[in-house]
């Protein structure tokens, strides 16, 4: 027995037949192959599966897919746009806000919800906001710094271009222009880092 579901994920409309017991996270991972959203527990504690549903952070292991009928969902795969990293992605990279990277997508989506409500959070507010997201690697210190950095980038009106000039062999330039210069103050910092570290 399946039911029809209409859902918009990262700006793409989908119409699918799903079992009523299918969870939103399974829909994303299995039916849409968006495996950036992870599953880390079975009790809604760890937050690795966090996505935005109509702009709100939701643990997608705790929502039936059918409950998202008609909703607009954003996953980690939808955060970088037009060849530019989202400020949170840039912040996590810049501040070493990740180690194994498994909790990172959920952490970024929760932080996106926070920054949409509170563009200049204090450290205490950041720590409170990510209480529902477990990270076992970082001790959270650099995650807090990363979210702070994202708030700073956003306030400066900056965004960060995807072309990666210091070790970006994993990511092709999304614009097709390998020389595209990263914009904003972050780009300058990155340039300094590179100079420091390789010479």
């Amino acid at each position, binding site marked *: 027995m399946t039911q029809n579901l209409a859902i918009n994920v990262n700006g793409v409309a989908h119409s699918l037949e799903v079992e009523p017991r299918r969870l939103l996270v399974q829909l994303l991972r299995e039916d849409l192959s968006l495996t950036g959203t992870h599953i*880390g527990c079975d009790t809604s*504690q760890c937050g690795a599966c966090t996505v935005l549903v109509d702009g709100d952070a939701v643990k997608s292991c705790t929502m039936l897919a059918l409950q998202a009928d008609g909703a607009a969902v954003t996953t*980690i795969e939808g955060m970088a746009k037009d060849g530019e990293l989202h400020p949170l*992605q840039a912040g996590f990279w810049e501040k070493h806000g990740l180690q*194994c990277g498994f909790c990172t997508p959920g952490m970024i989506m929760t932080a996106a919800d926070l920054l949409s409500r509170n563009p200049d959070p204090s450290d*205490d507010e950041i720590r409170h906001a990510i209480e529902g997201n477990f990270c*076992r690697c970082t001790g959270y210190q650099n995650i807090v710094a990363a979210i702070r950095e994202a708030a700073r980038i956003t306030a400066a009106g900056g965004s960060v271009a995807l072309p990666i000039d210091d070790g970006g062999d994993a990511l092709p330039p999304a614009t097709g222009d390998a020389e595209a210069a990263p914009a904003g103050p972050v780009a300058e910092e990155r340039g300094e880092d590179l100079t420091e570290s*390789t010479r």
Partner: protein
Amino acid sequence: MAVTTPHGASLKRKEDPRFITGAGNFLDDIKLSGMTYASILRSPYAHARIRGIDTSAAATMPGVVAVFTGRDMENDLNPLPCAWAAGGASGGEVGGVTNNLNTPRALALDDVKWTGEGVAVVIAETLEQAVDAREAVDVDWEPLPTVVDAEKATEEGAPQLHENAPNNVAVTWSVGDPDGTASAIDRAEVVIRQRLVNQRLIPNPIDARGAIGRWDPGGDDYTIWMTSQTPHIMRLLLSAFVFGVPEHKIRCISPDVGGAFGTKIFCYPEWALVAWASKRLGGRPVKWYETRSENYQATTHGRDHITHIEVGATKAGEVTGLRVKTYANLGGRLSTIGPGIPTTLYGRLLSGPYKIPNVFCEVVGTYTNTVFVDAYRGAGRPEATYVLERAMDLVADETGVDPVEVRRRNFLPPDAFPHKNVSGLYRSWNGVELAIDSGNYEPALDRALEMVGYADFDTKRREAADRGRYLGIGLSTYIEMCGVAPSKWIGVVGEGWGAAMWESANIRIHLTGKVVLTIGTASHGQGHETTMAQIVAEGLGVPVEDVLVEHSDTSGTPFGYGTYGSRSAAVGGMAAYTAVEKIKEKAKRLAAHMLEASPEDMEYADGGARVKGSPDKVKTIAEVALAAHVGYDLPAGMEPYLDETAYYDAPDCTWPFGTHIAVVEVDKETGKVDLVRYVAVDDVGNKINQLIVAGQIHGGIAQGVGQALWEGAVYDDDGQLLSGSMMDYAVPRASWFPELELDETVTPSPINALGVKGVGEAGTIASTPAVVNAVVDALSPLGIRHVDMPLTPQRVWRAMRDARANGGSTNGSANRSSSGEVRS
């Protein structure tokens, strides 16, 4: 050679772009054509006989492909190996070593020893169908009596788990000088006795454990994708011991692994199960990825020691003798290196940074009706450091000497290195002598005291008391052993580890000048794709983005022992460094030929080989790589291509050290502990990447603080895991920590050219006793001398209540006496 510097570069990580965009490739992200899904039926009893298993109903459920029990595979699969039986024992001076080994099978055959031991597997077209059908498997159980406590398991009348292990003793081992230690304690001016519980922990990588097995009928060989820190060791153990097939018939691949903390070192039942099942299904891939509750029941736990210590000291606080007896819970059957953790990695470190002249340690590893216990971040070294650092504070309490001063009086002086410690590092029975390579402990202590404002602390203590809070400060002055080596010491001829402990690296330089480094270590959060590339980039003088690092696939990487024990930089990094040196040597010879110079006149600098004194006579590494690749004009006898492999066996372990200080406030009414400041000064030698080093220390501290204050795996007397999910086990959250304050001293390791030591576990090792010492210090106005971890509000409240009722003086350990005496 400035490959590493005292402070390291702060290069952003090369691996991050895939993780921050959702493009990581973790085990559960992998889908293969024709893939099936496995769900394992696990025992609801902690100890039971299996009278029979009826799989007939499950086999007819929708989508079910097959249902297997242990009987189906018992002729094909041997029990898993225990690759590290206790070894070495004091150079044969004392007693003997007992190893009564029992290991799991892919699925249990006749009986189960813990809740969660696998007994049947259902394989279906979808995971949901497999889980549904699993519910229809019917097992006829005969429950048996249980024991879960490591010490009680050895007592008369305890339920017996294994015929070959009387009194449930899996391992006995000892180290040090029993007579000298007894005599020192007998003669001591101050004697302290204390029972310490180092509670069981659940490691909790956020990416749980999983595997996909695929048998290829074309070559009758297996590929196993697995969440492993050690794919090469897994291939070795699975082929040689479990399947009984040649190594080249098994390929192990670790995709991106989302944290491990030790739990993914080991050879698990499911590795064999999915590969075997795929063959039975004619080659359809079989995937198994555990749920979190399965992870808690079926993946290794850590720690779980009950330890009795006796400390002898002078009235001035100098420790003269330390006697330790530890009951180490190893679980219902042994994990891969379970016995090695509470022996070599614990007992041999029990003098720490101190010049204690007499140490004796006796270890009894026991079987209980709990899941297997094995290495968890720090692995033996946190347990040893906890014993020592609690002992130092107990000595301070008993003598009235300040805890800082007690440590100063006992520190090894800077001129004591290399130091052969009394707990037996140098006494391996095959004659290998190891020493603590370097150390200078007081500067780190001084810096940490300065940062925390130790001199003004009594004022702050009074201010807190006015607010209804007990303020406490606690120290931990630790050392740790990283990069365990050399092979002739740690191996079967020495400490008992079943193979070797070297590391490998291969460098190939394409004709375009781009560099590929393949390594035997297996990064799973540590950032090897960046740090190893930095070593090669700086060594060869090429941009770091021109170096690609490949790892974690037994096809295409040289054999390596993997990533654990903070060994990847000190051993794996040195393998990469050595491969760079080989490349440079060949480049110099070829460049000399190209420049018509003598090889002896060449030097390698600034990304090329040049004639000494004539910097314009140079061939860049890219030019040399092209010439080597095409091979049109090579010196006589030279092979084409720049392709060099290095195998590096370190001459010794490396020895980071430091001082951590915790400041806590305890609510006088509720017992709730708040960590208000945390200062860490670590000396991990030279650094390759400062960002990554700091991240390792942060994460390590958080795990160690977690043990001190919140975490604990709890089995009831029937062996049911009460802390069975993340709702019941207190994984630390962001709001529970203050901003950690880090600084460093730098004492480069003298045993390797990079001067690096290792940093993955330092935070975990140091932080647990620092926090417990701080809480006990906070409670000291009540006469409290010790409270066992985790220091939850309930534990602390009870200790305060008891102390107030007794008018002071409690050791916080239920049912056990602690005593201290000063002899006049």
